[in-house]
């Protein structure tokens, strides 16, 4: 994909990517349609599969070399078709017990959970000592890059770069662990790493495009890697275990949302809701964590997930009922939080913990 270089390097075209996107897309769509058509024929879901593939490819586009888009589109289409057949087969198998699908599947889900845990453990084990220490310091203890940089006498930028490389490796080792088998060729691991790190230069050096075509193994793994890599940047993970964490957490959420240009009212509403959720964690579960994600579809928004492994809420319905005051009822402040937010979801299991997910969308200022 390297084009001949004008020797003085002075041609001022920045990356040619965005301008050609429309053409590329039409071309990609034709390819994807062929791939899907060859496998499912005129199945009613064919067009959905094509659109879903394109959506995923576009989402991954910023992290792959342009030359890789085509092979990535093809493996994604293949994967989607395969998983549709799988789902269909499972539905057929379970049709006679349509009344309750969840119970029979639960042991399977349990096994999956166990597998995921052991994959994560083995992935961590495969990192070198420095990478592991850095990830633990930042992701688990929550030390920020500036502090780590100061301790190590380097710049926050360099720490961030190392962190993102370590995360990329962890993701690769994790999906490899889930596959529970070694990759078939020597090239697989470096290619997967370049994909995971969204390192276009490296992807090109390794000729990842050709490899993805010929290696089914990497074709299958490329998708979770790219999908994961996408979400890393806008996500903030805040441990919540004591009173001061409540104030810190709502400040961080406010700051993150501030980057989206939210109004002061929306920022205050978000901070207040976060405050209530964190208090519930501290009061009733002792500790837990908060995930703050920035969303950009269909418009800028913030999603906060508060989860704990506390005792859970025995009577969810009662907890969601408005008391005379917020400290009437069960005193969880949850009805108020629901009123403040655009979206609200709660799940709780006694003895296992509670997860509350709230979303607020930016208000369109032009109305």
């Amino acid at each position, binding site marked *: 994909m*390297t084009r001949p*270089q004008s*020797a*003085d*390097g*002075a041609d*001022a075209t*920045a*990356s040619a990517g965005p301008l050609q996107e429309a053409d590329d897309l039409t071309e990609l769509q034709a390819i994807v349609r062929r791939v899907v058509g060859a496998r499912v024929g005129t199945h009613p879901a064919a067009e959905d599969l094509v659109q879903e593939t394109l959506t995923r490819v576009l989402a991954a586009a910023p992290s792959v070399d342009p030359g890789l888009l085509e092979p990535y589109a093809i493996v994604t289409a293949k994967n989607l078709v395969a998983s549709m057949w799988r789902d269909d087969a499972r539905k057929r198998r379970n049709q006679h017990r349509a009344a309750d699908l969840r119970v029979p599947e639960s042991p399977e889900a349990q096994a999956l959970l166990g597998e995921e845990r052991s994959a994560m453990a083995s992935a961590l084990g495969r990192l070198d000592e420095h990478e592991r220490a850095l990830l633990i310091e930042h992701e688990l203890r929550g030390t920020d890059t500036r502090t780590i940089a100061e301790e190590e006498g380097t*710049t*926050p*930028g*360099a720490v*961030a*770069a190392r962190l*993102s490389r370590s995360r990329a490796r962890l993701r690769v080792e994790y999906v490899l662990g889930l596959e529970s088998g070694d990759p078939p060729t020597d090239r697989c*691991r*470096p290619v997967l*790493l370049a994909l995971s*790190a969204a*390192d*276009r*230069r*490296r992807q*090109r*050096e*390794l000729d990842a495009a050709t490899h993805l075509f010929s290696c089914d193994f990497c074709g299958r793994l490329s998708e979770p890697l790219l999908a994961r890599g996408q979400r890393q940047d806008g996500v903030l993970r805040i441990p919540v275990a004591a009173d001061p964490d409540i104030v810190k957490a709502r400040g961080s959420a406010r700051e993150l949302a501030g980057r989206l*240009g939210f*109004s002061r*009212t929306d920022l205050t509403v978000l901070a207040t809701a976060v405050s209530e959720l964190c208090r519930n964690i501290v009061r009733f579960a002792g500790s837990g964590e908060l995930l703050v994600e920035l969303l950009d579809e269909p418009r800028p928004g913030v999603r906060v997930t508060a989860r704990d492994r506390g005792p859970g809420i025995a009577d969810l319905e009662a907890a969601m009922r408005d008391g005379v005051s917020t400290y009437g009822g069960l005193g969880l402040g949850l009805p108020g939080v629901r009123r403040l937010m655009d979206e609200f979801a709660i799940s709780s299991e006694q003895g296992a913990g509670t997860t509350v997910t709230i979303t607020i969308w930016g*208000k*369109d*200022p*032009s*109305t």
Partner: protein
Amino acid sequence: MTQTTPGQHLLSELVAHLREHRTRLREEWAERIQQAHLLAAMTPQEMAAETTSVYDNYVEVLETGSVEALQHYARDLSERIIPRGVETHEVVGIVLLLRDVLARSLFEKYQRDFGLLNQVLDAYEPAANRIANTVAVSFVDERERVIRQQQDAIRELSTPVLPVRERLLILPIIGVLDSDRARQLTEQLLAGIRRHRARVVVIDITGAPDVDVAVANHLVQTVDASRLMGASVIITGLSPKIAQTLVTIGVDLSKMNTIGDLQGGLEEAERLLGYAVTKKEDATLS
């Protein structure tokens, strides 16, 4: 995973070269910026400081492949220079100039070995383009944010909250109210209370043809929020139909200060301003 590819090796050689000639290359770059009449809004001192930072960030991206630090810096820089009228083309222009200055110096260094030169440029070009993209995107993002802020300010100025006299505001509600507009009116009213140090607010809904349950709820919230800021609210022009809606959602109308028409509302407001302090209940929350 310790083997280094030729590309990586070249890139680190390149980085070393750029570090070694930092002063000369940076000055050459600054000169070309000046010749191109870019960033004319900056003083020579500022220019020297910023070009040094951009140069170092640039080389760091080439070295680490991570644009995170550069992104931060670019956003920060944009925030500082946008209010001074720096345009997008100027920012993109200076980064492209830097790209060219560095590319030229690479050309000089490797010109005797064309094969090697090609390899070096192959390693350099994608990274350089990525940097140009990053800076441009950061700048445009920041600019959009500033524009949004300015729009907010303009909307604020066109607020329908009318200060009739000291400590007294009127909020005439005209036309159809949906939840979005109702929310905006509330925000404007509350900001207006603080700006005008209002003690009494008259909300006149004579001009609102219909009020659904959501908007009625909103009206109640507006009254309560105004009280929290220390202002009493009088509602005028309440049609029987809207009054009915309020009762339906469980509002105790006797706790709301409602007056038939705007004239009566204003008289009541005068009275409150005169007695506001002695009649304590009027300034309290239910």
